């Protein structure tokens, strides 16, 4: 095999063709953009040079000249992660370490992170021996670097080499990690704290207990809240690793303290990771500790924390131990939830609204009707449109438990109000739920209550709404069938063709484009086509060229007779129109429909 690789190296000895100087000139070009382009094609250059010269000439050049724009360095760091084959395969992969080491000390975070990512990648390609001879010393150098950047980078490398080195080296690695956890600069402590969980996972259980726990405790009581909050993340991994009986003494004191931290950022993090924490500590601790902690987070004085906790209500309840889940929810969680429904902060309410419907499946029909329904109804009347929208968009959960009819009386005004909201994004969002609502409420209710709304959106003053309304009609027809379309919407749509506003006339065309397929050949030919053809005489050019576009669109639905006798003459006439856009689209339609 060695032979085959060197043969490869020999085979590309086109030295005279591509002298390294020319290639390096490209990498040095004065124009950053050109330099960047060359770096992005570094593999091309390496291939041209062959593995031998890539190792002996290109890599040293790259290592020496690392002082460039961050964008160039980022591209370089990324390239080098995929360079193993280009330097001759895994036995030479360590040649890539020097340039990546320099990149891992750069100031700019994205460059450094990319360098670390590439280092992690190529660490897997090192043999165990190479790992100890080349890779691990690099990690040590970075870990004891002068400037914080190299020490931060080191934090991300411990866990990839630890499992594959000898026990003496392992001890050294643990020592280095310990040192970085109590580093002078908060940046390094943050990096160490964010890698604590990952590092714990590769450690032997005894060391997790002896080393990691003390580091975890120290980081979780750091003077800076930005460090403490990262320890919460690590808490999840650590708790997962430890046997149940150790959790109480080793993890819980710290977790309890974090849940009551004086900084809202830390409490926010606890709330944000609550489901993960819950799974990691198991049902017993959840019952005794996490339930009261969760109650406190739901009542926190900062809205940010309450919103994060409110987001977790459903997941938390779902994961409660089944034997007394209902009792815990009813006595401990639901009272807090009730308060949140009338919270002063709209983010909290809308976070709650996005999950609260999920509780109905957990609590069953009777509890839902008695306790949850009043909350849903209250939220449907909330002053903040986002809250109402979140309730409506999750209706499917309730539908399964109690049927949507229970809600329909309150639903309707809420939908109507959202449909006319001043913010078009809100209107857009409610339109998107229409097909779903229509499916759940049934065709009768729909015709009675919602059809008018759907038609009103077609003449909205915002184009995005008209467009969404068109698409909505198509989905409704798919749901309710062509016959329904013919009776309820097609007449109204076609009626708009005579509207004095040309934007409304165009909407007719857009609707026809969307509906023709779902309505089928008969309706398209008999009802829609005549209207389209008639509009080819419209005085507004935009309408005329949209006629051409529509004909192109509905052409495939029509039979060849209609195409030849009705469509073709109209398109031919439009192809001689005075407006050049009309001409263009007519000609395009003629060629696409093969009518020439």
């Amino acid at each position, binding site marked *: *095999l*060695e*032979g*085959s*690789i060197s043969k*490869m190296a020999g*085979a*590309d000895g*086109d030295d005279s*063709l*591509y002298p390294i100087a*020319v290639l390096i000139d*490209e990498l040095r070009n*004065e124009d950053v953009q*050109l330099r960047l382009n060359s770096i992005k*094609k570094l593999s*091309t*250059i390496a*291939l*041209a040079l062959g593995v031998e010269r890539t190792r002996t000439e290109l890599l040293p050049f790259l290592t020496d000249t690392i002082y460039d*724009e961050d964008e160039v360095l980022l591209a370089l760091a990324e390239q080098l992660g995929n360079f193993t*084959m280009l330097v001759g*395969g*895994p*036995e030479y992969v*360590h040649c890539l370490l020097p340039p990546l080491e320099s990149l891992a000390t750069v100031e700019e*975070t994205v460059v450094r992170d990319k360098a670390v990512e590439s280092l992690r990648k190529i660490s897997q390609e090192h*043999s*165990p*021996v*190479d790992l100890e001879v080349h890779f691990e010393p690099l990690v040590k150098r970075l870990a004891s670097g002068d*400037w*914080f950047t190299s020490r931060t980078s080191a934090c991300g490398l411990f866990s990839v080499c630890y499992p594959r080195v000898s026990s003496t080296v392992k001890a050294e690695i643990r020592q280095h990690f310990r040192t970085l956890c109590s580093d002078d*600069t*908060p*940046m390094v402590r943050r990096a160490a704290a964010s890698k604590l969980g990952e590092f714990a996972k590769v450690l032997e259980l005894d060391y997790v207990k002896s080393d990691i726990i003390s580091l975890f405790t120290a980081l979780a009581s750091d*003077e800076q*809240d930005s460090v403490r909050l990262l320890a919460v993340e690590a808490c999840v991994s650590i708790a997962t690793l430890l046997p149940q009986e150790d959790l109480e003494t080793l993890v819980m004191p710290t977790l309890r303290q974090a849940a009551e931290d*004086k*900084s*809202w*950022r830390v409490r926010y993090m606890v709330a944000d990771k609550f489901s993960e924490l819950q799974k990691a500590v198991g049902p017993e601790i959840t019952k005794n500790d996490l339930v009261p902690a969760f109650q406190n987070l739901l009542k926190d*004085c*900062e*809205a*940010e924390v309450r919103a994060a906790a409110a987001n977790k209500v459903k997941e938390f309840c779902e994961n409660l131990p089944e034997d007394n889940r209902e009792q815990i929810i009813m006595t401990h969680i639901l009272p807090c939830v009730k308060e949140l429904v009338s919270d002063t902060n709209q983010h909290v309410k809308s976070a709650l609204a996005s999950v609260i419907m999920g509780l109905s499946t957990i609590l069953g029909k009777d509890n839902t009707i008695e306790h949850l329904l009043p909350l849903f109804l209250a939220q449907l*009347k909330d*002053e903040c449109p986002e809250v109402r929208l979140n309730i409506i968009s999750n209706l499917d959960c309730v539908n399964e438990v109690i049927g949507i009819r229970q809600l329909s*009386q*309150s639903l*309707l*005004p809420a939908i*109507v*109000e959202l449909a*006319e909201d*001043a*913010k*078009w994004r809100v209107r857009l969002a409610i339109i998107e739920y229409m097909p779903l609502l229509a499916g759940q409420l049934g065709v009768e209710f729909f015709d*009675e*209550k919602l059809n008018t709304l759907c038609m009103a959106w077609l003449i909205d003053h915002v184009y995005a709404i008209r467009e969404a309304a068109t698409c909505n009609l198509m989905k409704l027809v798919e749901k309710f069938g062509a016959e329904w379309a013919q009776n309820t919407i097609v007449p109204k749509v076609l009626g708009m063709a005579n509207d004095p506003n040309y934007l409304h006339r165009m909407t007719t065309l857009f609707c026809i484009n969307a509906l023709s397929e779902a309505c089928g050949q008969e309706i398209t030919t008999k009802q829609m086509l005549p209207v389209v053809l008639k509009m080819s005489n419209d005085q507004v050019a935009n309408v005329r060229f949209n006629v051409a576009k529509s004909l192109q669109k509905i052409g495939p639905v029509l039979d060849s007779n209609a195409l030849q006798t009705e469509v073709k003459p109209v398109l031919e006439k439009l192809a001689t129109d005075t407006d050049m856009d009309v001409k263009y689209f007519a000609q395009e339609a003629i060629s696409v429909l093969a009518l020439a």
Partner: protein
Amino acid sequence: METTKLPPSSPSSPTTSFSVPSAEKVDGFPRRSMRRARQRRSHSSSQFRYQSSQVELTPLPLLKDAPVAELHDLFCKKLQQCCVLFDFLDCVADLKGKEIKRAALNELVESVATSRGVLIEPLYPEAIKMISVNIFRTLPPSENPEFDPEEDEPTLEASWPHLQLVYEFFLRFLESPDFQPSMAKRYVDQKFVLQLLELFDSEDPREREYLKTILHRVYGKLLGLRAYIRKQINNIFLRFIYETEHFNGVAELLEILGSIINGFALPLKAEHKQFLVRVLIPLHTAKSLSIFHAQLAYCVVQFMEKDATVTEYIIRGLLKYWPKTCTQKEVMFLGEIEEILDVIEPSQFIRVQEPLFKQIAACISSPHFQVAERALYFWNNEYILSLIEENCQVILPLVFATLYRVSKEHWNQTIVSLIYNVLKTFMEMNSKLFDDLTASYKVEKQKELKRERERAELWRGLEEHQERRMQMLTEAARNHKRVYSRLASPRWQLFVKRRQLCDPRSKPYLLSDLSV
């Protein structure tokens, strides 16, 4: 068919539907001013939740009426009284208590500012405790996550009526002629300073203003803390640049640093140079540069005036971080460059003129006329003009092609006429060189085109080569993988282990060893 009656909260009833201002109805977007109006709110930190039971305050006798023997005792009691915190979000809660505390604070301020001999040693821990309890708190989350200090109104601190007096007291305390740094340093320690620095993130500009003066006094009086303060400011800046991009007090901290730099001893210590190169220069990359650019530029120029040898670091640093897409920042950079050039030493100018004028040429050809205009204004600066004249042989060839091209192409008439003036100036400076460059302009253009063609040719060749090679390599990689997977086999592992035992420093294993 049955008709459903709409419940009273239907949108058609004008009383219940929330009213939408007509302006909002037009485009569907709330206008900035309206958003702002909603944000004119004050907030308070979450500290009240930690106060157990509210203590009822009772007014103490006035300090000025106290007999001298009891003065210190009373002062101390007042300090303790001021440790009680009040909820200012509820503006009617405990009005009596709030008033008692306000009066006590006023008295304390007055007393420490005017009377001598008040500050005796036992009062230091009490005073620092009172200050800490009141000012140190976790700052609440910003009301507006996309808070833009230039556009939005800041959220003001609700407890300011008390907080201001506490800050005022702290300031008077530090400025008092009786203030003894040797006593204070036991209580104003590193931990205290760290918390003080974190408060600079406050959104309330009034608070930051006090903090700025206070930190400056602390830096001036407590010499033992100076290095620590500088280091922590470094950390705040580095976090701001590379991690969060958010910190409200950057301008204030820079202002303090401006005067600190002024006092640096010569020659500059490595620590200070490192601060310039690794912190101040990278600060230019921040998105919110405009908020603190004036203070930052001042610091940079201070460094140059201290020690001219840092000029090259500064200019090359700015060129490295030159804005690529943000023209507003580009104009700021050009402004800073002019400030620098105003005080540059001619010997230093020569070292940076080449990269600098390449950038200036690039700015002149910017399609954004403000950028081009700002760059062309350099020629109105007499000192810069004299530097250009001295180095005309180098600079003119760097900018000539751009000036020539842009004078024919730029859309903006002002720019075109400014360029004509610059060309005229150059013509007067060195007409011979000017004529030569005009004559060779076309030839140079041709050469450039030729180089471009050659480059395209080179890359075409390289890519063709790559295609051929990639096929071979994938083939080889496939073979290689097959063999390499055997490395994981237990037999190979055993072999490795044995060899390792014989000689731990043995060479890395080659795949050719895999003949076992």
